[in-house]
């Protein structure tokens, strides 16, 4: 059983997405990337990201990750801010530490693609 299934699948993503989105919107290090006119669209993207990070069904490839982030000139600081928001969200939802660890390792696995290294 994947982490995604163990923490409740799509319902877990639904529970997490608003909390996560609020965290990234108020974090000065990264808020500019998330503060768009089309919040609905941004919300969808974050659901897709969380689904991927939770190990759920997704169509992301390393190439997609690279292309989507290439123009943003992202650094370790940005990546860490998103990771903190992710962990903070999971803590708020009382997700057990072992699952948080698996989710963080999935997020870290795409780090080089996101930072274009």
């Amino acid at each position, binding site marked *: 059983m994947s982490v995604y299934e163990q923490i409740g699948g799509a319902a877990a993503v639904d529970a997490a997405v608003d909390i996560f*989105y*609020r965290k990234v919107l*108020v974090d000065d290090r990264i808020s500019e990337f998330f503060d768009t*006119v089309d*919040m*609905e669209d941004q919300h969808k993207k974050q659901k897709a990201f969380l689904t991927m990070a939770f190990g759920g069904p997704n169509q992301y490839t390393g190439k997609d990750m690279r292309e989507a982030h290439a123009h943003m000139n992202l650094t370790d600081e940005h990546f860490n801010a998103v990771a903190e928001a992710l962990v903070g969200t999971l803590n708020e939802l009382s997700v057990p530490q072992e699952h948080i660890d698996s989710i963080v390792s999935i997020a870290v696995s795409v780090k080089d693609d996101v930072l274009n290294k």
Partner: protein
Amino acid sequence: MPNLIVMSGDGERKKVSLSPGETVLDGLLDAGVEVSYGCKSGVCHSCLLQTPDQDAIPYEAQQGLRSVERGQGYFLSCKCKPEKSLRIQLEGVQQRYQSKVVSLDKVADSIWRLRLTKSLAYRPGQYLTLKHSSGVIRSYSIASHPIHDDFIECHIRAFPDGKFSHIVKSELKVGDSLELLGPYGRCVYEKTESSRVLFMGGMGTGLAPLYGIARDALMQGHTGQIFMLIGASQSNNLYHQSELAKLSRAYPNLKIEYSIQKLDNTAAILPISDIYETAAKLLPNMTGCEAYLCGNQSFVKRLRKECFLRGASLSDIKSDEFLRAVA
């Protein structure tokens, strides 16, 4: 390069090539195809076209359309930059209605109240596109109620260089005809939980749709608190206060608050305040609340974000963003 195949009612076909980044509307106009259009900003819906090739319609070209229209392949040609070729059905796709001016009054320094004969069905909170005989087309929210008023009312913010503003200020008279298209928009009251707290935030003529939505909610028996916050750039652009006061006397669960953004030369009746701070004080926790936000795009964007950060869920925030026409 994507091509357009234009199919007219009589079976004639014409091929039009689009330049990179060109909209369908601009491509058709360049090729001499007659298409009606207005704002070129995706607001007025006058350039609505239909295609059988629904998969080729970009997302942006259907934003703001009703789901039934999306399902039938309608799209906004001014917002459509297709990546694939498209067939376009040129036919009278829009229902048009004729209305006459019942009254036209200046209600604030730069705001006019236009009342028209009731010629179509609508929901409070929706908007219409008005077409003047000179060809100028603009969209305005509806402030009236379809059952309780026997006219359609729109509030028009006059801009010094605005084309429709000029018509309103110096040409339009009682009895004149206007063509109406619509109604459009989904910023309407849905009676799901009548005890829910509603927050309504409006800037300028954002008051118009909110007045309609509030009356609709109250008349449908909404029992939850309704907080309405109305902002104006200056106190001489506050208007409609007696109507709002009357409404809140009739329905004690409606609370109205005003916020003036900057001083002007008229005696300020109300203190200057930041509308976002006022909103936060009025309703610090918005978890479980429903919000209706109407006004210019930057106002709606900022207030939407703040409502979301204070706990409102995105799907509970409805909005109507006013865009200024570019044509």
